[in-house]
């Protein structure tokens, strides 16, 4: 009986000490990681945002749009920045995109994804995302043929990723139109 207690307590001790070290390291690294993530978000917001001051984030109960930031330029509403969650080949596609109140795409950045390097991963580059500028609503290409016409099917074999982005942006555009400049 005591032998069992000894084994159990020894393992408990090892696990506890390990967890303690992790807790300590975490205390050091967590603020650093938080700072880095905030900076990355701010940089993305600035890159995408239209002129004006960015409002604070409000949650949205939409399947694809997770949250949005209203952007005010003086009195008029110059647009919205939306957090979009599309589905690509490898998994979720987290996109930050901004739309005019009428739903036209102003800018978009691919924040997080698991797409295959060399194929879907190319969508990370700005030269790809800029091709969506100006499109709004149903014009945003989502099917393979539409993507090809708009020269958006940049790399063959990665159509699923690009279609995923197209769907997400289209949903974002409809969402902003529904907001109607609130």
């Amino acid at each position, binding site marked *: 009986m005591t032998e069992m207690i*000894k*084994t159990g307590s*020894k*393992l408990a001790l*090892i*696990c506890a000490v*390990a*967890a303690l*070290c*992790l807790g300590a*390291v*975490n205390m*050091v*690294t*967590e603020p*650093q*990681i938080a700072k*880095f993530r905030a900076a990355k978000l701010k940089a993305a917001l600035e890159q995408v945002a239209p002129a004006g001051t960015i409002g604070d984030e409000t949650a949205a109960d939409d399947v694809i749009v997770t949250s949005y930031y209203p952007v005010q330029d003086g009195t008029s509403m110059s647009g919205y920045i939306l957090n979009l969650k599309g589905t690509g080949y490898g998994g979720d596609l987290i996109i930050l995109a901004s739309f005019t109140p009428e739903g036209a795409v102003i800018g978009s950045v691919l924040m997080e994804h*698991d797409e*295959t*390097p*060399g*194929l879907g991963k190319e969508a990370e580059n700005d030269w790809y995302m800029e091709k969506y500028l100006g499109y709004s609503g149903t014009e945003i290409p989502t099917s393979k043929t539409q993507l090809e016409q708009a020269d958006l099917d940049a790399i063959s*074999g990665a159509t699923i990723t690009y279609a995923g982005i197209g769907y997400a942006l289209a949903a974002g555009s409809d969402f902003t139109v529904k907001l109607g400049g609130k």
Partner: protein
Amino acid sequence: MLKEFTKGIIKENPVFVLALGLCPALGVTSKVVNALGMGAGVIFVLLGSNIFVSLLKNFIPEKVRIPAYIVIIASFVTIVEMVMEAFIPSLYESLGVFVPLIVVNCVILGRAEAFANKNTIGASILDAFGMGIGFTLALIVIAFVREVLGAGTVSLVPIGSWDGVITIPGLSTSPARVFSLAAGALLVMGYLQALLKWSNMRKTEVKK
């Protein structure tokens, strides 16, 4: 004593000879810089785990041997994960799901189970370095072949303004993209091992 170190590099190379640690070896080697990052992570974790396992080898009861080793390895991996995410985030992003998988990397638990819990700390450290460097070299070789064929570039650690990517003029325009995928990695691994076996066979024939 030096034998402990050198054996890990060629004679008992964990990837090519012992066929251990294959998941990260094939998963992450689409770019050379990833291989370097993963290799560094594995060396650090292997070093730490070998030291602590051989330090505690009498303390850890036989019945809970594997869970105890795994906890030691896991805590080192989590430290690597946190430090990497906090201080070198670009590398952390490209290594993705593979960083936590270092903990189940057979090389580390294999060395803890087969070596560290039977030898002195000094030998364990040398073994860790040997195996770690052997692992990293194997990863670099695989990554180099896969990246040159699969993407036509060789991406190294970005220093200052240079983003560290050497593009090969001919290949980079139309590379054989399959090599940056799962299938290509397995094929490259197979042919590299065949090459190694062939050179060993020729060496033994020459000797005979």
